[in-house]
């Protein structure tokens, strides 16, 4: 990720804080993040906002090795060393990219069930940027 200015980050808070996607009124496809033209029917139609559940599965993942993190994540990297990033396929069918958190190495598996949690993403210009990460679903806990 490259530098995101405060106003740009602010504009996208609904998707970053609570997974607000846009449902195409023409074909019903959920677009996440929001787009001007529907990814499925390619029409410039009307959209209605739709909050996604935050439950999904790891579609794929990679480890950001120590030393290779973008500058805004260097503070985190200093504390934890390498950290995982996943493409998560949400139960509504859309895919999103986010960090995994509160995981054990054995949790990093394709198809593993994960859930969105609200966390600090990084701090820049003294402002804490919050957003969503995903963590493994504990079998002992009922769904949130």
């Amino acid at each position, binding site marked *: 990720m490259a530098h995101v200015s405060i106003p740009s980050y602010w504009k996208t*808070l609904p998707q970053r804080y*609570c997974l607000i996607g846009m449902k195409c009124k023409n074909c019903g496809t959920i677009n996440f993040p929001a787009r001007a033209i529907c990814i499925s029917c390619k029409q410039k139609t009307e959209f209605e906002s739709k909050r996604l559940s935050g439950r999904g599965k790891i579609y794929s993942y990679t480890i950001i090795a120590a030393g290779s993190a973008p500058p805004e994540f260097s503070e*985190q990297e200093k504390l934890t060393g390498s950290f995982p990033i996943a493409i998560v396929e949400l139960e509504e069918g859309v895919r999103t990219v986010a960090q995994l958190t509160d995981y054990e190495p054995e949790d990093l598996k394709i198809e593993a069930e994960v859930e969105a949690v609200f*966390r*600090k*993403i990084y701090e820049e210009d003294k402002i804490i940027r*919050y957003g969503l990460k995903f963590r493994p679903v*504990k079998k*002992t806990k009922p769904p*949130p």
Partner: protein
Amino acid sequence: MSIGILGYGVYIPRYRINRAEYIKAWGQFAAAGIEEKAVPGVDEDSITMAVEASRNALNHAKVDASKLNAVYFASTSSPYAEKLVSSTIAMALGASPRVSVADFTSSTMAGTSALLMGLDFVASGRGHFALITASDCPYADPGELIEHPFGAGAAAFVVGEGTPMATIEDSDSATIEAFGERFRKHGEKSVETLGIPSYTEALIIKTVTSSVKALLNKTGRKPSDFNFIVLPQFDGRLPSTIARMNGFEEAQLIPSMIVSQIGDAGTASPLIGLAKVLDEAKPGQRVLVASYGAGAGSDAVSINVNEEIVKRKGAVPSAKDYLADKKYIDYVYYLKIKKMI
């Protein structure tokens, strides 16, 4: 339709540091009755903990966030000294922009302050639903003994109109001018104490006893009329002393006790204790909750448990679930993630 607690939830971060790690580093662990304490992860703070406790409370209450009219946040460890953070929580939950927000800060009694204000908000008819969350991870310099008991945790309550699982019968309060026991000046990061334990304890005992006695007098109830008493848990020993001095049995206190596993959770402490008690309370039972804030003040609240409590048992993760999911860290990693080194 009546007004009361429609649902509640807690959150405890999964990282723990135990007594042995402190003893290895310092030769002692100045935290009576605490075996281990909860530590927020590198990407957590009082806001993120509050969001998860609040989501649990909303799911427990089956109230959609868009229906909330008030979102109140209580903490001594807000990441900002100035800037609302109840707004951050409201947005993360999906609350409407037309919501009353307030941050209750600068005292460990702010959790009950917010809970009572939230109740007054709905009882006065200014709104239908209020969410109150208390979330805390107090901070002090690692070289100070006051740091040893500091843990972390969050609780949240949804109050409003409906069929409450618990109703607030009444409350009473006490205040006394006091200083030097626990404080933090403007611009300081670390909580301080002048380190006179007998003075600190005497003030806590005196103030909490005053609010509890006032509530008993006002309601005409005796200690034995309550099935549970929940007290502020700064350590694992003082609550027993306060309970005993006020005529309560150990058996009334034990179900709320969680400090031995999470440490001092500041504003959240009495409310996590209340949530833990409600997890096992039966309809018709009664709970007394008391808070304490240095400086000093205390609220005492009498809560009646209703039939509805049975229906939502086990619907969301409980304190017990969060206690079971833990990962131990060593003292050096603790210093790193608390940004102490």
